[in-house]
């Protein structure tokens, strides 16, 4: 355990445990996930969201603008719905046409602005927007589900739960861009001037939330067009069970390596929340009962999660079984005074996914200890060299914080088997096999931290023999190639959790674990791996509806369950 960190006085788990890629790839959504924080904010602050333009033709194509009156500013969410043939419907990042394209913009929009957006938003990466735009995104229909739901509503029936269990959304988003891409507003602008979205990925999550709302409105619109006399609206329970599909690929993986201070901050906040619960969470009969209810809900949720991937299916079964084992253990230990006994038992007997799921469950019990941390998710990202550091201290720092990297034997071909590069197709990140594919000469630098640390350490040890009393800046004058990795080591050496402890060039690397880590902070559910490179998942399933803003809000939408079938 780390003795203490500046952010907390609670004992935190050690980086060697937390920053393993396998564990990061076992994280689940939790109270501080960005979707959860966003929903709490707009529910508590009662944002007012109404369509200001709703121009859809009888085929559901057209333009829709929602006016979003948040606490501090007004925003506009603009959607363009266009015809897309089935053969052009492609979730890959290299696609060039989509069913829906959309943008989240600052302020009210006049006609000229909407026209400007209409000329560019449908082009996505090939278009240009301005600093008034915060998010650019697109989505494709889940063709079978969408048609099915429209037909059912048109016939006066609610969609069948069993079908929605398999695919719990009408649209899949394939990219959500923010942070200044294609001329949009920089994150620095949003963070300093627009507090409604001044948390990481808050605007991006909101865009997906609005897409979810529109997807149902569009389906209802089409049902009414098709059969005005028989069409019905979607029941609230069914509507809540509709989420947004998401396909996330390798593009997200380099982000975690390139923003190490931010990722370390997210992990630190999550670990702080866990530590608070383990240190201060009183175990009462009420807490035990609530945990039991949550565990039952989680088990049912994973039972209802059907994915084609056998490995993920097995992991879901393991979760269900081990949650049952947890409940059995709790029945035998009703007198425990702290949750540390449960987590210690879990660490010894159950899988990592279960261990981390238990952490997510425990955090649900103590919103008073956890929720205030949601404003600590931002980080000032300023990698910096400490040039005056004696070389001996740098060597010690590497040995202390990067022992995991020094443990890798780079003489083994498998340790350098993979290389990461950018493809000329939309600059998409890809992974190649070093010994059989072209392009290793254009490997993305600094993604393979472990190898860079090893190179730096070897040079440093050699240099120290000749310059035992020298400092970092003089080493850098002799070895300028080491500038990047030294700044990295010195910067991350000050962070609580530091770098992700994995050699991403290793033949056995599973990039999907990086995606899973980031997606857990987003707050997605129903991981559906399609390969070791990309994963489908569901966003906002079970979340409160726009129409429920202003009603009593219970922040209990984790582990959504299929609604009971009603007509």
């Amino acid at each position, binding site marked *: 355990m780390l003795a203490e960190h500046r952010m907390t006085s609670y004992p935190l788990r050690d980086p060697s445990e937390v920053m393993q890629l396998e564990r990061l790839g076992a994280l689940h959504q939790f109270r501080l996930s960005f979707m959860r924080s966003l929903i709490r904010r707009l529910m508590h602050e009662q944002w007012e969201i109404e369509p200001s333009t709703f121009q859809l033709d009888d085929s559901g194509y057209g333009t829709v603008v929602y006016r979003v009156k948040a606490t501090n500013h007004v925003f506009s969410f603009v959607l363009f719905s266009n015809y897309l043939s089935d053969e052009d419907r492609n979730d890959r990042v290299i696609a060039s046409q989509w069913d829906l394209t959309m943008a989240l913009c600052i302020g009210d929009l006049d006609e000229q602005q909407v026209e400007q957006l209409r000329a560019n938003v449908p082009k996505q990466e090939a278009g240009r927007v301005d600093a008034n735009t915060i998010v650019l995104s697109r989505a494709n229909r889940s063709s079978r589900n969408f048609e099915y739901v429209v037909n059912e509503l048109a016939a006066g029936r609610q969609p069948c739960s069993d079908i929605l269990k398999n695919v719990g959304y009408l649209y899949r988003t394939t990219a959500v861009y923010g942070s200044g891409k294609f001329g949009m507003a920089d994150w620095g602008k949003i963070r300093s001037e627009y507090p409604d979205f001044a948390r990481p990925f808050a605007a991006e999550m909101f865009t997906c939330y609005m897409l979810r709302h529109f997807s149902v409105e569009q389906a209802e619109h089409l049902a009414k067009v098709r059969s005005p006399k028989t069409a019905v609206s979607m029941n609230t329970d069914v509507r809540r069970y509709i989420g947004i599909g998401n396909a996330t690929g390798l593009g997200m993986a380099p982000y975690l390596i390139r923003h190490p201070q931010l990722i370390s901050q997210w992990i630190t906040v999550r670990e702080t929340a866990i530590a608070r619960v383990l240190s201060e969470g009183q175990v009462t009969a009420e807490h035990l009962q609530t945990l039991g209810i949550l565990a039952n809900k989680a088990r049912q949720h994973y039972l209802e999660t059907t994915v084609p991937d056998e490995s993920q299916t097995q992991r879901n079964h393991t979760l269900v079984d081990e949650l049952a084992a947890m409940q059995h253990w709790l029945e035998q230990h009703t007198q425990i005074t702290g949750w540390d006994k449960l987590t210690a038992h879990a660490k010894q007997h159950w899988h990592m996914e279960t261990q981390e799921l238990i952490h997510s469950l425990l955090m649900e019990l103590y919103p008073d200890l956890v929720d205030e941390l949601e404003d600590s998710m931002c980080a000032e990202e300023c990698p910096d060299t400490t*040039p005056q550091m004696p070389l001996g201290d740098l060597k010690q720092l590497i040995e202390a914080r990067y022992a995991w990297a020094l443990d890798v034997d780079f003489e083994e071909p498998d340790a350098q088997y993979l290389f990461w590069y950018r493809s000329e197709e939309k600059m998409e990140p890809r992974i*190649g096999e070093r010994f059989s594919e072209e392009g290793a000469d254009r490997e993305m630098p600094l993604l393979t931290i472990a190898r860079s640390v090893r190179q730096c350490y070897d040079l440093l040890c050699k240099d120290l023999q000749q310059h035992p009393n020298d400092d970092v800046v003089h080493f850098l004058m002799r070895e300028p190639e080491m500038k990047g990795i030294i700044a990295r080591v010195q910067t991350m050496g000050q962070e609580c959790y530091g770098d992700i402890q994995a050699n991403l060039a290793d033949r056995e690397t599973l990039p999907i674990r990086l995606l899973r880590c980031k997606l857990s902070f987003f707050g997605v559910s129903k991981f559906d791996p399609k390969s070791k490179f990309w994963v489908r998942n569901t966003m906002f399933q079970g979340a409160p509806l726009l129409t429920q803003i202003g009603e009593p809000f219970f922040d209990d939408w984790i582990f959504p369950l299929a609604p009971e079938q009603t007509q």
Partner: protein
Amino acid sequence: MKVSKNEITALLKQVFEGLKFRCGEYESAADMIVWAEMCGLSGLLALRHSLPYLTEQSPPPLRSIHESETKAVLDANNGSSLNCADVVMNLAYTKALAQECCSVTVLNCHNRKLFVKTIADCGNRGMSCLAYWRDAIDPVALHVVITAADSDGMPSYSTYKLSEQSFIEDSQRQSLFIECSTKPVTPDGPIGSLIADGDNPGTNVLPAALQNNYHASLMQGLSIEEDLWTQLQALAQIVLVESSEQSRMGAGA
């Protein structure tokens, strides 16, 4: 056209990566240009001028000509400040930290205006700094940058007219002079006289003006000429790998 800070920074990193800047160097080079542009110091113009000289060969490292505890003279080998500014300022900072003050001279260095960000960063580190250099094109113009400790990262930037009998000789036309101190830097000698000379037709941009420019750029985006944007995008292609069926197998969603 307008671009965001993030996208021009990302593009420049990729450009410099393709031009074989070293890891760590290409990030700071991009930051130096974007920061200067946002502050109104024509970072993109400096980039435009420097592009013809940036080749796909890693520049030679800085060479130390002379070094003592409080002084250093370095040779940039006709390289750009984009490649060496960080190390130069780190050396100045380290010496000043140990000895309270120091001076560093850099010879044969181009694009010296882009040093300004690293000089400003000294203030963020709690160090005062004065830097000056003679203009490469207009030989009677002297550029002076002063940053105070804890100055929120913004220096003052001034230009003054040199007399024909300048204290910077013609042979030092490509040099940069830096003084770094743990105490406030008070310009004296010829620089002090220049600054004190009320008749000198210089210009003076105060930290607040730089800050305002930076903020406006962050809010509205940066202006860049389309031909430069196109040129940078073409240069950035160097790091991309052509697609094949096999490479598509290694793709995500």
